[in-house]
């Protein structure tokens, strides 16, 4: 099992932008691309375990992300493909944590605020609008989008499959997924002709 190198896909974005959905789809797709050892670190889940007790002050949010980053770093070192899905609202904190990782792909998950308010799967936007969530990211607390994310996925305009393709393409372009060279034009013609000869086309 020593032939897989670690990497981290860091999904950042406001609540409801599709981080968990995209992360789960990536978790399905990665093994077929050779990343059999894969771990999803979901921010919501880890707040119930590793990060239990942390609140939503700036200091607690930073601590939360630093713990996630530390786990991701350990896993990456041991050859695991790690998917982090966490709001991770502060640009500076994300940059500091990602600097500790060897191969990290930052993915900005986004959607217009009006769409997020309409979706509001967890009912949080409604609570924030009612003043019941004093530190809700993007409404009553800051969210700092990435300035130069490797990939941006707008869940209001793109399918989950398209998002997965974009992330896999970015990993491919960096050479982080082995065995992922596509067919050249000449190879494609060779295969097309073979299929035609065999009657498949």
């Amino acid at each position, binding site marked *: *099992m020593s*032939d*897989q190198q670690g990497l981290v896909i860091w999904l950042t974005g406001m609540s409801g932008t599709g981080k968990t959905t995209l992360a789960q*789809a990536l978790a*399905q*797709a990665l*093994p*077929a*691309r*050779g990343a*059999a*050892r*894969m771990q999803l670190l979901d921010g919501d889940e880890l707040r119930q375990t590793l990060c239990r007790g942390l609140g939503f002050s700036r200091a607690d949010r930073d601590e939360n992300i630093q713990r996630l980053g530390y786990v991701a770093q350990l896993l990456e070192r041991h050859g695991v493909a790690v998917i982090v899905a966490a709001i991770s609202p502060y640009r500076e904190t994300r940059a500091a944590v990602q600097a500790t990782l060897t191969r990290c792909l930052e993915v900005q998950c986004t959607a217009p605020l009006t769409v997020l308010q309409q979706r509001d799967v967890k009912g949080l936007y409604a609570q924030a609008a009612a003043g019941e969530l004093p530190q809700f990211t993007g409404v009553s607390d800051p969210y700092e989008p990435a300035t130069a994310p490797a990939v941006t996925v707008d869940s209001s305009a793109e399918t989950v*499959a398209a998002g*997965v393709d974009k992330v896999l393409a970015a990993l491919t372009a960096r050479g982080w997924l*082995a*065995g*992922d*060279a*596509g*067919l050249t034009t*000449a*190879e*494609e013609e*060779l*295969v*097309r002709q*073979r*299929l*035609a*000869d*065999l*009657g*498949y*086309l």
Partner: protein
Amino acid sequence: MNRRKLAVIGLDCATPQLVFGAFRDDLPNLKRLMAGGSWGKLRSTDPPITVPAWLCMFTGCDPGKLGIYGFRNYRDYAYEKMTFATTLAVKEPAVWDVLAQHGIRSIVLGVPPSYPVPPLPGGTRVGCWLTPDASCEYTWPRELKRELAAQFGEYQFDVRDFRTDDKDYLKRQIGEMTDQHFALARHLVTTRDWEFFAMVEIGLDRLHHGFWKYFDPQHRKFQPGSPHAGVIRDYYRQLDTRVGELLAAMPDDTTVLVVSDHGAQRMDGGFRINEWLRQQGYLVLTTEPATAQALEPGMVDWPKTRCWGEGGYYSRIMFNVRGRSPRGMLAAGEVDAFRAELTAKLELLDDDCGVPMRNRVLDPATLYPVRNGIAPDLMVYFGDLRWRSVGTVGGAAGVYVQENDTGPDDANHDHHGIAICYDPTRRGAGERQGWELYDVGATVLAYFGLVPPAGWRGCDWHGGAQ
């Protein structure tokens, strides 16, 4: 977790009427597995085509979920962009990916599609016949390629020059290719550590397509007394011998599945779907082609065209919908009525002799709960696959053709392949009914004590539904 080995031997196109019927007594090794195990017809996918069928078998996903409806798939609705279904198009884990996550090592040989060859942690993988040629990186680990080349010579992914009239040359090639594949398989199962083995041998499919007319008296081109009349039977015997040798190289307590992705039947001819659509006024060209040629987007008068079709063993029909395609004609509100109209006309077609063709017209929206990628708007099995679809337009040939300009036409696929399940520690159940291709992956995972990923389709043959 079961630590006994499990081997899946895939024989592309192995067909039940021959394996379980006419040739049964010629196949002592398969007969032995049947006698000690369970066996039956294996319902293939819709469509019953090599790609996506093997992929569906080993991912537990239907073509809609995979977004892979054939060897080539539209990238969008802009008429032109069809891409090959390589491993890059696969977004779902296969059984060997799931097994690798649990530290179970696999050998995977020639299972389509398997190019480019993705890494298989702890395992061994060799590309399928969709690999361009032996200069490509077609193995995992990468260095395995050199070892195989040194021991077995240049790897034969498929037969060359399939449309040759030299049938002896074709027969010889298929036989030699098969011998090489099985020799390589024996080498790997005896030199690698593994728990799961899967291979697909493509030779049988090629043989059916190339030689069916010589042995089936019902075939329109049957030639009594042909010197090639025994080629298919002889090859089945060869295949059975190779399977026996491979099993002999594995531990005695290995559980074995012998499966195929679809069956085979005679082909009665080709139906020129686009010529028929032109006759009906559904497809309009800007100019009349002087001779039969492939339909190209630049030939079509798109503002007057409601749909077009693809050639192949079955036909995919795409609608030219306004707002979906650049020069769409059909309004979205007209699509359902048009689908019903076209379906009714296709189902009522007679063949060139005036006999009802028994065409089957399928709507992917009712076949697949999820339709990723670009699904066809309709799929048509002409003569329930006794006729292939021909995509060319122009020329004097008309709608029904016997001479196919795009490939061999001796045989087409059939909806049922074969399955034989032999577990030396269990009492076999003899002939079974109702097995589906999707069951294979579920059975493999259950064998190793693993729960399939969410949404995985199929039943464990030794247990219940997933």
